């Protein structure tokens, strides 16, 4: 069964450094998403991406965040200058169509980001 993959599984960085989290969505999916989950808390929406542009973003997704689909398979989340409070599990997800329809979002295994 096709699945969403994410690399690395764990990223440790110093405060102020830039990090890039990578995701390979399911190949025929058209919508891509990033979510964040701080330890012990709920999953929070960051951004959705369709047709090579951001379709929607949350208040969390400020100027230090950016997303990119550099080629036909990868979908990346960049955090320019990490802060301690960016430490969380970051999940990538993809879906065939809008989540408001009957399409399912498939989540990757996540990247645990630790900012020291």
């Amino acid at each position, binding site marked *: 069964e096709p699945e969403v993959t994410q690399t690395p599984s764990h990223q440790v960085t110093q405060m102020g450094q830039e990090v890039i989290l990578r995701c390979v969505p399911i190949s025929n999916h058209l*919508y891509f*998403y990033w*979510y964040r989950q701080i330890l012990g808390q*709920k*999953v*929070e*929406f960051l951004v*959705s991406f*369709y047709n090579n542009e951001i*379709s*929607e973003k*949350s208040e969390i997704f400020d100027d230090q965040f950016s997303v990119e689909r550099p080629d036909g398979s990868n979908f990346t989340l960049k955090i320019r200058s990490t802060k301690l409070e960016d430490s969380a599990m970051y*999940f990538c997800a993809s*879906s065939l169509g*809008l*989540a*408001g329809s*009957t399409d*399912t*979002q*498939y*989540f*990757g*295994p*996540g990247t645990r980001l630790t900012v020291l």
Partner: protein
Amino acid sequence: GQQVMQIPQYQHVQEGEDFTTYCNSSTTLSNIQWYKQRPGGHPVFLIQLVKSGEVKKQKRLTFQFGEAKKNSSLHITATQTTDVGTYFCRGGGGNKLTFGTGTQLKVEL
């Protein structure tokens, strides 16, 4: 903004007991989805409800969408240890569905 609350936050049950989690939204939802997240794992889609008053079943799991489309419930009959995890509802419209706060279920033998 839209808020989706779940109760209870935690639930400990003995294996074989039933379990129910409730999801309540501050606004009317176009649809609601339920996810399960095992400890250390990622959210896994369980089901989506779209119609007012809709009820769906998956083996021991029963999902219900309220008549006003502002609340939903997940009921597990005769819990098993494999049911352990956090159950999230997720609702709204478009592609920015809001996750609920989650209910963490622990099942003891």
